[in-house]
């Protein structure tokens, strides 16, 4: 089996989609979408871009299965780490990330 070998047409379509997704992400931000939905849309678009880059630019679609296993397992571990940590931070009482105020004022001049 030949690994890789994207055609010019595939490359053109891949990057047209990627540029469109960048513009889409920018338009959503400039449209004033905020809060949870802004985060959801932005991260979803970035995830979609990752999928396109991995499948076509990194030629995962035409790679052997052993590479596919690595490419699937690694993001799952990443997702697990991010989700569990954020859930922990959201739900633990008392909040774990309270940072005590630091005195950053400049030292007073000597009398």
């Amino acid at each position, binding site marked *: *089996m030949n*690994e*890789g*070998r*994207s*055609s*010019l047409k595939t*490359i053109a379509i*891949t*990057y047209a989609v*990627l*540029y469109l997704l*960048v513009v889409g*992400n*920018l338009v*959503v*931000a400039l449209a*004033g*979408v*905020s*809060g949870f939905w*802004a*985060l959801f849309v*932005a*991260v979803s*678009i*970035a995830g979609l*871009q*990752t999928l396109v*880059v*991995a499948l076509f*630019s*990194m*030629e995962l679609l035409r*790679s*052997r299965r*052993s*590479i596919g296993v*690595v*490419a699937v*397992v*690694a*993001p799952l*571990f*990443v997702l697990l*780490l*991010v989700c569990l*940590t*954020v859930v922990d*931070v*959201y739900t633990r009482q008392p*909040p774990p*990330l309270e*940072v*005590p*105020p*630091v005195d*950053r*004022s*400049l030292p007073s001049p000597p009398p």
Partner: protein
Amino acid sequence: MNLAVPKLQHHFEDLPKQAHAARLGMWLFLASEALFFSGLFTLYAAYRAHYPEIFREGVAHNDLVLGTVNTFILLTGSLFLSLALWALRAARRALSVLLTAATGLAGLVYLIIKATEWAHHMAEGIFPGGRGRFFVENPEPAWAIFYTSYYGLTGFHAIHVTVGVGILAWTAWWMHRERVGPAAAYKLAIVGLYWHFVDIVWLFLWPLFYLLRNPA
């Protein structure tokens, strides 16, 4: 001796298996890199969940234009590299050298813009670790956390871009010297894997540090 044809190492049966092993090795390396960056992204996510308002203000304080220009530059660099690989496989070595060098140049432009952005921040008194006059005027600790995660994530990403630029320059030189030909195109493909990964990391950094700025 034709250097453009890779030497078959004794522990591989044939060249396709050798090329596959090299690609698998790079994918495993990238998996470890993904875990490294995920730690930093988790830090950002946890603190953003805890201090949403100051993180939003911090994002609004960053330069959206420079961040967006850098996104297009990195994406264009990736396009050049995909075309370079296509050209090398089609035995158009000169074009491939040119496109690989153009990718490295895109990385260099990205670094210059990023350095300009950091210089603007430092002129405002924003230094890593919450040092500088900005944090005297804004004593809320979340500001220091936001900018430290900003410098940390974009800094480690910039280190990866710098390494990528070096590898691209080296690969372009090797191709120019006819040490990498169509039969060894997998070597350029491996460089491409690294560069596309660096691109992916930025595709997440861009919204997190430049786009998510609208008040709830």
